[in-house]
């Protein structure tokens, strides 16, 4: 009797330790405290797996053609390389560039204009948008309840076969919370495993002098909003955060993106207008358009010599996280969505 008890206790401890180990690294040591409240949606490997399946499943769209991964591809740090504006159902073209997805637990709002206030609720926007997935939340949940795979998965993870909007959103969040990028060369230099080259070191110095106040280490964004002096694109007439707050002081403000994984996630800016990092740096040195809402940090002209630009780009490339981009845990769940038949 006692022996059995000991075996059970040891086994449970082992399971517990295994579970902790598995999610080790989701809150990197050098990161600040996350904003997402994990206690309200505790991570669980089964729930994460459902989230991953939903993320790659076009069932979320009206005609089963578009999945989250259509515009958020793992190999592009979950952005949409080579597409300036996002693509959606019936060959629709959106008005903004699909942003890269990582370190989402540290975001206080979502979308380029901060329209969404919680990671759980973000997926509602693309699902219901006529030009993205063109569906309704209720219809998606009905489809999931009728599918051959999801009720079984939800029962094993949530203890109920009845899929609700709440559970679907929480599962999607779980997968997205595992998309943590914190293993770039920069991170390895910080932890003492590697060293910057002299160019990278000089680029880091220039970064700290000119960029860090908005693209703040170690997330490489403050995730606040700013007008970075882009002239308005008259074909889009996108005034950013003003649409949400209806305040004139928010005219032309967009959410500051992270500078991690830039090599994988071009083109840049909310409308994907720049394809190369060089174009971005040229904008900051020569292209800033003054306006009443221009970020105070950009009122003073930034100058870089051509050598300095090379060094700064060398530093920015140390923020590429290859291990994250090619992490097999984040990929298409083939065994669930496309099981091989015997």
């Amino acid at each position, binding site marked *: 009797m006692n022996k059995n008890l000991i075996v059970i206790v040891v086994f449970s401890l082992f399971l517990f330790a295994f579970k902790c180990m598995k999610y080790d690294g989701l809150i990197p040591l050098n990161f600040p405290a996350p904003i997402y*409240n994990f206690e*309200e*949606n505790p991570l669980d490997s089964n729930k994460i797996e459902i989230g991953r399946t939903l993320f790659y499943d076009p069932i979320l769209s009206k005609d089963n053609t578009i999945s989250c991964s259509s515009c958020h591809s793992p190999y592009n740090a979950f952005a949409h390389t080579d597409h300036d504006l996002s693509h959606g159902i019936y060959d629709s073209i959106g008005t903004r560039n699909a942003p890269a997805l990582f370190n989402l637990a540290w975001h206080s709002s979502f979308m380029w204009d901060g*329209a*969404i*206030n*919680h*990671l*759980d*609720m973000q997926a*509602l*926007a693309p*699902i*219901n*948008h006529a030009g993205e997935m063109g569906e*309704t*939340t*209720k219809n998606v*949940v009905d489809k999931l309840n009728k599918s051959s795979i999801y009720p079984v998965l939800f029962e094993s993870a949530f203890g109920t076969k009845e899929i*609700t*909007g*709440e*559970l679907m*959103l*929480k599962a999607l*969040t779980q997968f997205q919370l595992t998309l943590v990028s914190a293993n770039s060369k920069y991170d390895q230099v910080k932890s003492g495993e590697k060293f910057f080259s002299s160019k990278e070191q000089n680029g880091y110095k220039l970064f700290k002098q000119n960029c860090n106040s908005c693209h703040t280490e170690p997330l490489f964004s403050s995730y606040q909003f700013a007008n970075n002096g882009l002239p308005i694109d008259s074909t889009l007439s996108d005034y950013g955060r003003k649409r*949400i*707050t*209806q305040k004139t002081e928010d005219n032309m403000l967009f959410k500051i993106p992270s500078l991690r994984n830039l090599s994988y996630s071009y083109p840049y800016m909310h409308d994907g207008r720049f394809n190369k990092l060089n174009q971005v740096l040229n904008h900051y040195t020569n292209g800033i358009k003054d306006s009443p809402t221009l970020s105070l940090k950009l009122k003073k002209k930034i100058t870089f010599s051509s050598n300095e630009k090379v060094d700064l780009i060398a530093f920015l490339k140390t923020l590429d996280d290859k291990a994250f981009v090619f992490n097999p845990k984040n990929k298409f769940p083939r065994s669930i969505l496309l099981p091989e038949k015997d």
Partner: protein
Amino acid sequence: MMKTILFIIFTVFLCASFVPKKKRGLTFTPTFQRNIIQLDRDYYRYEDTIRFSSLKFYISNIKLHKGKSKTYCFPKRFHLIDLSNPASLRILSQKVKKSNWDSVSFTLGIDSITNSAGALGGDLDPTNGMYWTWQSGYINTKIEGFSSQCPTRKNKFQFHLGGFTFPHQTAQKATLPYAEDGEYELNFSKLFSTINLESNHTIMSPGKKAVDMTEILATCFHSKL
């Protein structure tokens, strides 16, 4: 003999304890021209013919008060009242005692903390169609229908009233004298008498127009006569 009497008394008590307690609670009935609104039915007014196709609103944090000290809070905090689901009009609680309450207070809409709390279930599940998708926030009140006055496609009016951030918070507190039968009406005739449907027919986002309309709506609750 004694044993039999005891047994009978015991049985009676046993049965009594199994008789379900009468549930008491409140009913919120949307009315128009003094009657419960029927969806998809024409109502004739001096200025137009009006028809409702959808009518939903949230009532939250219901409390009963007696004097300054005694308060009873309904255990379920959020109630989606949907005219197409008659059962939702009645908010029951077994624990409401038939005490002489003075007043009832509640909020028309959802508070700002709940609006920022992420995915929630039950009456707050986003599949109920009462959560905006293009930006975060609950639609506190959804009123849709048709009026010959509306210069819109198919003469449609759509009021999606919500918003929880300063200065356009739409959740409205209301306090009413307690009605013995717990029956309350939400008088939409009164609300619509203040709306010029020719110019005001579509509200789909938070803002001053949404606040103004919900402020009026919150004054349209009455105990049923």
